[in-house]
Structures are given as structure tokens and as C-alpha cells.
């Protein structure tokens, strides 16, 4: 009986340990492709973006909002405004190294919400901070660039070719925390038409962001 218990314990421990997908190194000829992948789907210039947002909350309930984001990748600053479809501002915050909430209407008035939102915006619109830990290919053949962030988290930028881009963020213990899919249906100077964000774990949520308007702010 005892050996079986030990075996089950060992199996449980094994299953609870997460692991990162293997990155297979690319040859020298793949260097330009690797560089492109490491640049990712992130815009270099300043933009004003308007998205319609479908939020799926724990329990499967859906809510619809409008999201206005003004981003400046060079300074890594962002202004984020969430509105109802009728145009009422329910959340307005500025991110410039720290978050300054200008307006927050319940239930969007918690610090947890503000921090989570800015983290999601960082993941979606800004190239990861930190350094490139590895680049190459996944088992599927998709090109990948792995960033190690200063806080211990890891971000995989995966070039899915015609299907767009996928960004996966892992916690320091390698558990998958966020998945972002960026899809391109039309030419918006590198701005994706559709973004799907999945927050894994509990409580999970999902956002589907459809681009309504993209205005370049850089001359």
C-alpha cells in the first residue's frame, strides 16, 4: 500500500509542476526572422485607439464596453478610458511608471482592478521589459521569442504567420497567467484589428477587443 501512496504523491507533485514550452534554437539563417519575432506586434509610434470590448466574466456572463487607449510606446505611458456604449466614462487612468486614477465608478473603483487593467495594457501594447532569454521555434514550428522580465515573469511572443501573433505570459513558477491573440484583418499600419485576452487561473476572465478607430499621434 505504501509504495502506491508514494507513487501517487510523486505523480501529484509532478503534475503540479508547470513547465515552459521548449524553445528550439534557430540557425544563423533564421536571425532576421528571430529579430522580427522579438519586435512582436507592438506599435513603435503613439496611437489613439478605440475598441469595443466584450468581457466574459467568471460564470460566463458577458458585458460590453468601449475602451479608449492613448499609448506612447517610447515612454511606456498610456491613458486608459473605459466607457459604456452610451459614452459615460466609468474608468479613467493615466499610467506613467505609476497609476493615477482620474475617475473610477463602482465596481471599477478598486486598486486591484486598476493594477490589473494597466498590466493587461502593458502586455497588449508594450514590448516586454527585461531581456531576451531565448529565441527560436516552438514544437509547432511557430517562431518564438522569450523575454525574461525583471519581476521573474516570462513572456513568449509567438509569430503565428497569417494567423497573427500570440503572447503568453508565465508566472515565475511557469504557470500560464495570460494569453493574448492579435489578429490582422485589414491594414491599420501594424495595429491589430482584433485582440483576445484570456486571464487564466481564478478568477479568470476574457476580453475580446475589436478595433473601431486608430488615429496615429506621431507626425
Amino acid at each position, binding site marked *: 500500500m505504501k509504495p502506491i501512496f508514494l507513487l501517487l504523491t510523486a505523480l501529484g507533485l509532478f503534475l503540479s509542476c508547470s513547465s515552459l514550452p521548449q524553445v528550439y534554437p534557430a540557425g544563423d539563417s533564421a536571425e532576421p526572422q528571430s529579430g522580427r519575432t522579438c519586435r512582436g506586434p507592438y506599435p513603435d509610434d503613439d496611437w489613439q485607439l478605440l475598441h469595443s470590448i*466584450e468581457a466574459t466574466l467568471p460564470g460566463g*456572463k458577458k458585458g460590453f464596453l468601449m475602451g*479608449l487607449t492613448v499609448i506612447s510606446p517610447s515612454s511606456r505611458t498610456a491613458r486608459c478610458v473605459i466607457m459604456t*456604449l452610451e459614452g*459615460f466614462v466609468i474608468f479613467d487612468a493615466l499610467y506613467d511608471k505609476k497609476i493615477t486614477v482620474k475617475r473610477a*465608478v463602482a*465596481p471599477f473603483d478598486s486598486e486591484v482592478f486598476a493594477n490589473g487593467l494597466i498590466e493587461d495594457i502593458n502586455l497588449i501594447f508594450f514590448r516586454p521589459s527585461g531581456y531576451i532569454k531565448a529565441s527560436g521555434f516552438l514544437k509547432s514550428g511557430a517562431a518564438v521569442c522569450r523575454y525574461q522580465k525583471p519581476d521573474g515573469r516570462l513572456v513568449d511572443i509567438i509569430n503565428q504567420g497569417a494567423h497573427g501573433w500570440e503572447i503568453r505570459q508565465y508566472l515565475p513558477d511557469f504557470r500560464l497567467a495570460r494569453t493574448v491573440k492579435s489578429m490582422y484583418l485589414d491594414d491599420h499600419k501594424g495595429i491589430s484589428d482584433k485582440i483576445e485576452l484570456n486571464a487564466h487561473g481564478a478568477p479568470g476572465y476574457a476580453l475580446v477587443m475589436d478595433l*473601431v478607430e486608430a*488615429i496615429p499621434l506621431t507626425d
Partner: protein
Amino acid sequence: MINSGFLVRIILIVTALMCLGWADSWEELKSSAGTVASVRAGFTQEKHMKILTRPLVSEGVLFFQGPDSLRWEYKHPVQSILLLHNGNTRRFFKKSGSLVEDASANLQSMQVVVQEITQWLNGRFDDNPMFAARLEPGRKIVMVPRDESFTRLIQRIEILLSDRPAVIKSVMIFESEDSFTRLVFKDVILNQKLDDALFRKVR
């Protein structure tokens, strides 16, 4: 998720005010309001914010049938429909070609709205305990929240009445010093018979 009851309340204020007549006194407003049974109109909504390089513009149509049926429909750039009928509120959002119901709507708060709309339709919006209303020269009504905490959401609402009796020209909702919404109404038709299905079905 969203206190949509609050939003619906504002929409209803706007809609109800469309039924208020051209007048220079509260008494005349109340008198004109009694002549309106239904409203059909197009609208343009401009969202102005300091950070925007140009305002966000939406367009749509609205249908109102007294005492408490409303269809507030955005056509562009994002399609959505808010339906109010027999005390029930539903909101739909167009997604991938089909209309999906917004489950975040706070339906309970609509009961309060339905009670208030009756007052507004009778032109008694100066009775509304939420706002202090004043009638200014040039057929302008200014509504300011009485509750200090409510001013965090809306600082004031300004309604400009049309030359045409029982029609308003525009509404401005000031959320803060650098953010306001402007609604401009057009092609207003009063007292046209409206199909009941407009308020029950999205299509």
C-alpha cells in the same frame, strides 16, 4: 458589472425631455408635454474629452412610446440596442453579425426609472429630487445634481429646446471639466403610431 440603470436613467431623462414642449415657463412645459404620446428621432452623439484629437462620434435612432417604452439604438460605429418595455430592460450588442444580450445590465434599478419617467413626461422634471433644474433664457434648461456625491458622475446637464414646440435640439451632459457628451437630435417625428414590436424585439 456596469450600473447600467444609471445610464438608462440619463437616457430616459434625455428622451423624456424630448417630449417636453417649447415653453418659457415650467407650467407651459408641463402643458406641452401632455400633448406628446410618441417620439421618433435620429441622433448624433459626440463624446468630447481633452485627450481626444477629435471627438468620438456615434449615430443612432430612438423610439419612445408613452408611458414607458423606449428603444435607443446605436447604428454606427458600434451597433447596440437598449430596449425598455413593461418595466423590463434589455440591452443587445452586435457581435460577429449577430446580436448578443448584455447580461451586465442592472435591471432592478429600472423600476425607479419607470416611476420617475412618468413625472418627467408630465413635464414635472423640476420635481425630480435628483436634480435642481432651472429654466434659462433662450429655451435652455440646466439640471444640476442635488447630491454632492452625484456630481462626481455628472456635473450638470444642459438641454436646448428647439423652436418647434415639444422638440429639443440638443443635450449636453458634463461629466467633468474636460469630458462631456453632446447629443443632437434630428428628424424628430411626434405622435406617430409606433409598432409595439419595436420595444420588444431587437429586429
